[in-house]
């Protein structure tokens, strides 16, 4: 028996439960088609959106998409929900909630106060009804500011992670890319290496390398080596100078298990990192991405955008310093082409901000997707306008370890120029002190500059 249905001309479109309604209301993408969840026609999609617009927001509290008894992320979502914070929108439907978010009166303070009352499912539902411009306008209202040694997310600021990966973790090779990025004004979000192998000794050594660079040049930034959380914990226990603790996370318990983590392990990792007292108060760095739950066969029939929003519920339980969706990394079976990657990037950023996260985005694509660097330019620009906290800085946009294309140090210069944005204040002062930039422009670098060998 259909709970929702809508007659369109001679046809009647019916939807049996919230999961089906959400999935079929999702703008078209490869992953939902792969999962067999997507609307089968453009008309059915709009019918689902029309039905979804009339669903009371409060229904998501009464009818969890994934049963709490089966999934610790569902339990976490219900435990996080703050009824008092929810009150301003408690009587609204999904369609009215979209309109409430768009009002002039809904500002940063209102959104910050509301965030503890929202669940990922409510936020995902509303974004399914949004145009790309809505996703930009609403996200732009919200600033989420975090601190370690630098301050990320302030108005008028735009940060970059310096990502100096090397195919074999060669210290000289990583240092060469670090120097290149610093000279191009990047690295204020984090100096973050994806190690080539998940090896405790290597992670220990790479953290030592980053710590020596940060200390020697007095750089107001933080280090991270993006190994598995258990590997970082082992390195930490061997005395590695670890600033930020990283982990990839997803929106269901089973998907997290496929990453080798659960909420208890993440809590243990955060406690161990905080105990080091190296900076903060935020010490966690999470990466996410649409399609990870389906990829692990752990999506419970929930569409990939909603699963992604549920990952943000996991992230916010640990007061993170950085969170980013790696939007185009997973491949064309989940996001088919540039158009789908752009849409997903805007959705992820908006959902993360609404749930109170310091969102960045790895604007990226792989070589087996029908996308190119022009698509990346488009998404980078849109997210810059939307107030994204940070992006990736990869030499020449070409990650020679992970084998994908992201954004570059030159892209940082581009976006800061066109939008009049500055690096994190502590980092900007350091760039000026080092003679590398002034008034938002790079300065010529002398061949005997202190950063050069």
């Amino acid at each position: 028996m259909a709970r929702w249905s809508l007659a369109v001309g001679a046809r009647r479109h019916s939807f049996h439960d919230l999961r089906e309604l959400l999935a079929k209301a999702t703008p078209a993408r490869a992953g939902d088609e792969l999962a067999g969840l997507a609307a089968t026609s453009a008309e059915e999609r709009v019918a689902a959106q029309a039905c979804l617009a009339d669903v009371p927001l409060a229904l998501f509290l009464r009818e969890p998409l994934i049963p709490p008894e089966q999934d610790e992320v569902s339990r976490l979502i219900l435990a996080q929900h703050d009824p008092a914070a929810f009150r301003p929108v408690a009587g609204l439907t999904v369609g009215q909630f979209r309109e409430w978010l768009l009002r002039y009166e809904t500002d940063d303070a209102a959104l910050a106060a509301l965030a503890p009352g929202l669940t990922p499912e409510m936020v995902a539902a509303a974004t399914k009804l949004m145009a790309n411009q809505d996703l930009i306008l609403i996200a732009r209202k919200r600033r989420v500011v975090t601190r370690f040694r630098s301050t990320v997310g302030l108005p008028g600021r735009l940060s970059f992670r310096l990502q100096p990966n090397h195919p074999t973790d060669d210290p000289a090779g990583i240092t060469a890319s670090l120097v290149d990025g610093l000279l191009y004004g990047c690295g204020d979000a984090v100096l973050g290496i994806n190690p080539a192998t998940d090896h405790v000794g290597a992670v220990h050594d790479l953290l030592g390398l980053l710590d020596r660079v940060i200390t020697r040049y007095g750089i107001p930034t933080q280090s991270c080596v993006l190994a598995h959380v258990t590997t970082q914990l082992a390195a930490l226990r061997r005395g590695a100078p670890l600033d930020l603790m990283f982990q990839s996370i997803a929106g269901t318990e089973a998907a997290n298990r496929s990453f080798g983590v659960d909420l208890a392990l993440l809590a243990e990792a955060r406690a161990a990192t905080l105990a080091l007292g190296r900076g903060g108060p935020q010490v966690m760095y999470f990466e996410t991405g649409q399609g990870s739950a389906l990829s692990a066969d752990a999506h419970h029939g929930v569409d990939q955008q909603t699963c992604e929003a549920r990952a943000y519920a996991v992230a916010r339980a640990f007061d993170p310093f950085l969170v980013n969706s790696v939007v185009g990394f997973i491949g064309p079976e989940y996001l088919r082409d540039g158009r789908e990657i752009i849409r997903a990037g805007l959705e992820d950023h908006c959902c993360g901000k609404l749930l109170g996260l310091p969102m960045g985005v790895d604007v990226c694509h792989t070589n087996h997707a029908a996308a190119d660097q022009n698509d990346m330019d488009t998404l980078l620009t849109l997210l810059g306008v939307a107030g994204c906290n940070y992006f990736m800085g990869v030499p020449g946009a070409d990650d020679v370890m992970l084998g994908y294309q992201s954004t570059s140090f030159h892209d940082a210069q581009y976006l800061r120029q066109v939008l009049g944005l500055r690096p994190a204040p502590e980092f900007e002062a350091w760039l000026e002190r080092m003679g590398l930039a002034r008034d938002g422009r790079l300065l010529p670098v002398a061949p005997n500059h202190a950063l050069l060998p």
Partner: protein
Amino acid sequence: MLSSPEPSLPARPDPWTALRAHTPARIALGRAGGSLPTAARLDFLLAHARARDAVQASFDAEALAGALAAAGIAHAVAASGAADRATYLARPDLGRRLAPASRRDLEARAAAWGGRDLAVIVSDGLSAPAAQRHAVPTLAPLLARLTAAGWSVTPVLVVPFARVKLQDELGALLRSRLSLILLGERPGLGVPDSLGAYLTHGPGPDRTDADRNCVSNIRPEGLPPAAAAERLAGLLLAAARLGRSGTSLKEDAALAGDAELSPPAP
């Protein structure tokens, strides 16, 4: 003092091009304002074009089978559920399982082969050139080492259009203690032929990526095949000794032969 030798030129080179000797990364590209010089942009476009072409390159399974035979390695060819490249890219679920005819065929052969220590699969994955060039140079020393250690190994299965998880179905079907798959990784710019290797102890349908260990970037300019064989042998021997693989098997412990360094399974 300044690095711009000819003020009339609109692009400024970076005075740290010597650092390029240390990394294949695109560093010291120079800048026009803050943007890419034209030559660097064209270089990127060419690399992207080549990577796109590598993804579309066709896999010659028979030629690989011939190279395995020439190296004295027993082998067989099988098919995944993905019949062509377009289907393979769009439907990872089909690449994770055998085609029904191949499954029936292998079920019959498995009885004759009997349960062994290791099942090995080679696939083009996302880069046919990677499998074509580096699979045999990796497998020859690896299998020699394992055989010397007394291991029994099933014939190497060449399976076009496979995903990593196919090692679970095949390993279970062949009743092997461990399974290993070598397949082409996503081509990066300027890195069209990087091979990846994934191993799983006790392969079966319930295994996830957390149960696997990975050795990536196998190619002469990255992790050379002989060195990759050495690492894989260490991991496989440790996984067999400890009875587990994945996040609870750290490579340090594998190489040191020291199980105490591994944290408990999450």
